[in-house]
Every structure is written in C-alpha cells, then in structure tokens.
C-alpha cells in the first residue's frame, strides 16, 4: 500500500468532497430540468408553450441526469456501506424516486409523438411528477441524515433497518424537502426566464421570485432548527483516519447542540450558509430586474451553499444511526479501500475535465432562446 502516493486520510477526504461536487453538479445541472418539470403545468399553459419548455430542456437533460447516475455510482464505489445502508433503509422512498425518474425519459420523448390532447396532458402530468417527487424526496432524505436513520449493523456488517417510509416524514425532514423543492424550482425558473420570451418568461420570473424567497426563509428556518433545536451526533472516541473501514470501532453520542460543533471549531463555516442566502437573493433580485445570467448564477451559488452547508454540518458523519449511534457511518470508517479510492480518483481527475469540456460545448451549440418557430421547424423536436 505504500506505493500509493496519497495517504488514506487524504483520499477519503477528497472523495467526500467529490461526492459533494457530484451532488452539487446534479442539483445545478439536473435541477434545472427537475425544476422545469415541476413548473411545466403552471408556467406553460398552452400546448405550444409546453413544447417550448420541453425543447428547452430536451437537448441537454439526459446529460444533466448523468450527474445523478454518477453520484449514485460514486457512493457505491467510494462509500459502499453508505450505499448499502441508505438505499435499502430508505427503500420505499427510493422506489418513489425511481418510479418518478422513469417517467422522465419517456415523457420527454413520447409526449409530442401524438397530437391527441389527452395523451399530451397525461405525459405533462407524468413530467410534473418526474420533477416534483424527486425534488422533494431527495430533500427529505438529506433531512433524515441530520436526524439519523434507525439502522443497526451486526458483527458481519449486515444492516437491519427498524423504520418505515412514514417515519421518514418528520417535520424537520419535510422542511428539508421543501428547501430542496424551492431551490430546484428557482433553478428551473431562472433558466425558463432566460431562454424563453413573452408571457411564459414573465410567469417564470414570478414563480422564480417566490421560490427564491421561499428558499431563503425555509433554509434559514431549517438552519436554526438543525443547530439550535435538534440534537446532533458527536464522535467521542478517537477515530483512526487511516484505519480499516469498519464502523464498529468507535463511540458516538446523541446530544443537544452537536450540529453546532463544527461551527465552533471553524467559525468561517458560517460564510457558506450566508453565501447561499446571498445567492438566492441575487436570483430574486435578478429575476425582478429581468437579468438573464445573474439569476442562474445566483441560484446555482445558492445550491452550492445549501448542499455544502449540509455536508460541513454533518462532517465527519455520512449517516448517523438513531438506534445505535456507535455504528453511525462516517467518512473515516465507511469508505472503500485505499487502493480503490486512489484508482477511482485518478480516473475522475482524468475524465471529469473532459466531461465538463464537452458539456460546455453542447450548451454552447444549443444556446439561444427557444421559440415556437424553432420547435416547429425541427422534426426531432419534443
């Protein structure tokens, strides 16, 4: 193992950050399309308007969704215990997300293949579900990371889960779900406002401003709730950051104010939630001022800030256990092996810039407003 140039602690930390980057990438890129899906029935009233929205998202949404696919694969490859415990524990919630996500590729592709209004209306609602449900449930899942999940691990590291779907729906988790929904709706609205014209752009600005305000209020509320009302988790033993990935070798307590601990150690961390509020504010202001780029950037900064805040607050926890805190998963004891993390890091460092390059190129090629005329002239249009 000495032949690996980065030590185990470093690659674990880097992969924890990379996981955050992938999730932020999905929320910024895929979030556009989820937001557009959620707004579809409200912002676009006529069939022509709906086609414009679908063709706005159409050329790039598939690539954007790969951030989620890669995020899922990265959890599997880099933090297998997190993948195993959370995906099986949140089983029914995952099924809800999957069923909703299944509707999207077919919704985009099939909706405009027939002119029948009932056919199109059915797919419009399918696309709405495909945007709304994942936006909400992803947030509920993140909210549950703060509360801890009722799982145990036996001495073979097999997980057993003692909750059910409805126990996930606590007030704080629902609040987190609404934060996620509001922030992704804002993201979708900023893109619609920038790339369409007339009444629809107006409606998008209106919804986007409300969503940006809601993001600020709900996120602030959630922050106060998490830091000052909820109990948090704290590792009380010394964790061997170079040690084997086995969550059974530490002790953890569940106590008041524990989610404030990192802010006490590193007061600069308060800058991140503030940044996200500034971002949402820029989105709110920019939409009102009819700016094109500023709202998209502001909303993206807000997404970066919100997800980073969650990650830093939970650090070093990935998923605490509410019924047996000692087996909580942390990034130091729930990662892949040193060799796997390093090999995958090399591959990511090589491929991620290439992905960003061709994605940027595709967005450049497809830039410009989407109009009824451009939709009508393309035989492949959605």
């Amino acid at each position, binding site marked *: 193992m000495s032949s690996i140039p980065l030590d185990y602690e470093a690659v674990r930390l880097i992969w924890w950050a990379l996981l955050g980057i992938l999730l932020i990438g999905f929320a910024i890129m895929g979030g556009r399309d989820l937001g557009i899906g959620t707004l579809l029935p409200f912002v676009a009233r006529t069939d022509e308007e709906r086609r414009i929205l679908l063709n706005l998202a159409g050329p790039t949404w598939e690539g954007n969704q790969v951030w989620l696919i890669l995020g899922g694969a990265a959890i599997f490859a880099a933090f297998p215990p997190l993948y*195993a415990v959370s995906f*099986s524990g949140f*089983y029914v919630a995952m*099924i809800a997300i999957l069923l909703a996500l*299944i509707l999207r*590729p077919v919704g985009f592709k099939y909706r405009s293949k027939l002119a029948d209004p009932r056919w199109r209306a059915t797919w419009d609602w399918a696309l709405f579900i495909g945007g709304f449900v994942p936006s909400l449930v992803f947030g509920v899942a993140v909210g549950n990371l703060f509360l801890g999940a009722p799982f145990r691990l036996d001495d*073979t590291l097999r997980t057993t889960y003692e909750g059910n779907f409805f126990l996930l729906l606590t007030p704080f988790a629902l609040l987190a779900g609404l934060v996620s929904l509001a922030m992704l709706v804002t993201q979708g609205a900023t893109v619609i406002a920038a790339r369409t014209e007339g009444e629809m752009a107006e409606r998008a600005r209106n919804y986007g401003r409300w969503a940006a305000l809601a993001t600020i209020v709900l996120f602030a509320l959630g922050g106060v709730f998490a830091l000052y009302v909820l109990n948090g988790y704290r590792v009380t033993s010394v964790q061997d950051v170079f040690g084997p990935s086995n969550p059974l070798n530490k002790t953890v307590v569940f106590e008041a104010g524990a989610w404030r601990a990192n802010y006490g150690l590193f007061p600069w961390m308060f800058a991140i939630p503030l940044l996200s509020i500034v971002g949402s504010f820029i989105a709110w202001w920019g939409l009102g001022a009819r700016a094109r780029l500023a709202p998209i950037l502001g909303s993206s900064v807000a997404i970066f800030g919100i997800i980073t805040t969650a990650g830093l607050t939970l650090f070093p926890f990935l998923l605490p256990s509410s019924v047996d805190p000692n087996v909580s998963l942390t990034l130091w004891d729930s990662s*892949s092996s040193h060799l796997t993390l390093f090999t995958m890091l090399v591959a990511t460092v090589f491929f991620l810039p290439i992905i960003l390059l061709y994605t940027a190129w595709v967005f450049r090629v497809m830039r*410009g407003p989407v109009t009824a005329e451009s939709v009508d002239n393309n035989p492949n249009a959605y």
Partner: protein
Amino acid sequence: MVDPLVVDLSRIQFAATAMYHFLFVPLTIGLSFIMAIMESVYVMTGRQVWRKATIFWGTLFGINFAMGVATGIVMEFQFGMNWSYYSHYVGDVFGAPLAMEGLMAFFLEATLIGLFFFGWDRLKPVTHLIVTWAVAFGANFSALWILVANGWMQNPVGARFNPDTMRMEITNFMEVVFNSVAQAKFVHTVSAGYVCGAVFVLGVSAFYLLRGRHIELAKRSIVVAASFGLASALSVVVLGDESGYVATEHQKMKIAAMEAMYHTEPAPAGLTLFAIPGADGRPEFEVKIPWVLGIITTRSFDRDLPGITELTEHAALRIANGIEAYKSLQAIKADPEDLVARAEFDKRQQDLGYALLVKKYRPDVENATGEEITQAALDTVPDVWPLFWSFRIMVACGLFFIGFFALWFYRSAVRKIEKPRWLLWVAVAALPLPWIAIELGWLVAEYGRQPWVVEGVLPTFYAASGLKVSDLVISLTFFVALYTALIVVELFLMVKTIKAGPSDRFSFGEPPPSAPVEPVTAVKAG
C-alpha cells in the same frame, strides 16, 4: 437470516428489471453503429437519401433509447436497495466499474445524444457525424464497463477478503478490468447487440419492400445491415465459443449444467444435441455429436470435462476447507491481534464463500454436520433443464443468423434484394429472434451462476437486503405495472413510426406541412 421469500422476490425483481432493461440495450448498441455508418456514407457522398435514412433510423433509436435510460436508472440503484449485503461485501470491487461507466461512457453518450437529435441544423455535417460516432462509442464503452462488473461476478479475480472490514477488496485493478471472462463476454454481448440492430433494420426494410414503399431507403439499409450483420453474427458465435472456453476454466458447474452432464465424460466429450429428462431429472435419452464439446470447452482432445456429481463432491471439500477459514475469521474478530488465526485464514480464504453456503442451514457455520455440508454441496448445482434448453435455443438462433446474413449479403452483392418475396417475409419473421437469443443468453449466464451471486465468494441468499415482504410486493407490483404499460406504449410508437415511414415530420396526427419541407432546413434558432 433474510426471509427466503424476500430473497426470492428480490431475485424475481432483479431478473425482471434487468431483462426489461436488456430489451432496449442491444438495439441501442447495434443501431447506433448502423446510424453512424449510414451518416458516414452521407458525409462522404453527400447523397440526401443517406441522411434521410440516418434521421429515420435515429427516430426509432430515440424511442428505444428513452426506454433504455428509463429502465437503466433502476439498475444503478437496486444493488443497494435490494442487495445491501452484496453492496457492502463487494462494493469496493464492483462499484468501481459502475463509476467508470458513468465517467467514461454514459456521460459521453447521454450528453451528445441531444446534439444527435437537435444538432442537425446547428452543426457542420462532419461535426454532426463525429457526434453520432461518439454516441455509438459511448454506448459500447458502457457495455464494456458493465460487463467488467458482471464478469467479476462470474470470475472474481484481482480481489481478496479483508477480515478487518469484512468484505472483498481490490488487490489489482488491472486484473479486474482485463478479466478474461469480462473481455470475452463484452465482445460476445456487443456483437449480439450489433446482430440485433442489423436484424431490426433488415426486417423493417424488408417490410417496406413487401409494401413497395420507401424502396431506395430500404434497399440501402439492407445493404448496410446485411454486411454489418454478417460480420457481427460470426463474431457472436466465435466469441460465444470463447466464452464457453473461459467458462470451462472458471465455472465448470455452469458448463456441466448447461450440458446436463451428470458424470465426467472421457475426453474429448461429446456435445449433446438434445436430451429427454427421465423421472429422476437426469437425461434418459440423448443425441450426441462425439468430441465436439470437449474441443470447444477445453481446446484439447485429452482433458476431461467434470460432471455434476464429481463437481458436487469437490464442492463438499471446499465447504469443509471454508469452514476452517470461517473459524479463523471468528478468531480474528474476537482478537484482531491474533496473528496465527490471520495466517490460517490467509491459507484458506479462497474457500470462505463455500462456508457461507452452510448459512442456509445454520447460523453457526463452524458446527455444521456432515449432512449439512452434503446438502450445501448439492446446492451448488443450478437448475439443469432451463439452462440446457435456453443454451440450445440461443445457439440455434446464433447459427441461424450466420446463414441468414450470409444469404442477404450474397443477395446484396448480386443486387437481388427485392425478390424473392418469401425471403423478405423471413426477414420480417426473424425480428423477434435476436431478443429471444439475448434474453436466453443472460438466463444461461446468470441463472447458471446460481446459487452464487459472486461465483465461489458470496451466495445469493446471503446477499439480499433484509426487507419486508410488503416492501417487495409494493415495488415489484409498481415496476411490473409501469414497465408493462411503457412497453405497450413503446411498441405502439415504434409500429406507428415504422408505418408512417421516413418523412419530414414525425409528429403523428399533425397535418403535413403545406409546402414540402426538407427535414432540416434553415432554422434561425439564434
């Protein structure tokens, strides 16, 4: 232990979702290359009919691709959802190729697919052609990494068990990637996809010729499909044979079961053409071709092929050895500093998985009785007859494709494509065959691996999540209902698109444009 009903339902759900998914993947793999070839001809010759063909097959590709993406999302997540102990136990090895697939292949394919559809009027022809080829290579690289992952489940090389983390960990990444089983399976699988694409294009084009419609496009499509299909059909069978050879090295039980070979045959073994099972499940009446099986599987005249009975006896020995490894593992858990136990464990760890087979009968594996060991050894035998027949039907389809494409290749070469009509009807009737062959091929590969989820390392029943039966009932019901509804819609749109034929508009029910419009005329999209 996980409820056996939950294990069974989890297996049914995985099989169902994977088999649904693989209805769409091979056509994506095959059609993407055929489109790229057609567009290359367009760019080289500048003839519009080739662009029209690319756009037309591209429309069908798109309808199919959407289903592939929709059903593929589930594949990515259900390992963790339904197979959480598997995910923990082998995630260090198995997760990496899945992540590589996203990084290297699916990102490329999914990002550029939009430009394939929306970029015709925004890109120079050569640039668009590069996009189409990139999509095709993306689809194929996807298959490469997925089969590296799957190949590792068949032949788990480059990894060992770590007692401190209670899981398999990578020791050599290159061994995992260049796993001989994975490489043979990759070429076999993508070639099957090419055959699927070629049969599809040929069948639909033959339908047009029978109806006397779109003749220019259909004839050109048949020329491409026949030559591409012939090369691919040869590749499928040759690489299938290679798979057989490597499977003999690593999965002797699978070969024995596929052949319903209960006893070791003296070398070189004969290939059973067909057989009728007797009352005890063993073959009662067989028709055999002498020597052929031995030559295919061992590439020799003198190496024996072990039978099921002999392999079961061997499994019992490995279980006994695995139980010793399991005892050492318990000692290490009790005292991580116990170096003697660690040394003992290292000597026997390759058989640890065999000890886990006993978990079906008792949790305290170390106290297994001789009878339980015998029972666990018998569990290593997969269901013989489904494998036996699936394999034979698959091979028959493969051999048929070689003759089929050779004939069409010849007819294209002598420019006699439109006649005789019965041959066109054969091409239409052959449409379902690639899907039948491909699904049966996966059945042989995966059902033939049972009782293992990872051959010799992790039994399937031990790998499932401890979900409730109600969870599985909910998810299985929703998946089957939604997937079935979507397949009906997908087939409906496919048929509708094929009936409408290549045209300038693909939105059905809309009035045709008043003036004839070139499919992709100037759009000042700005």
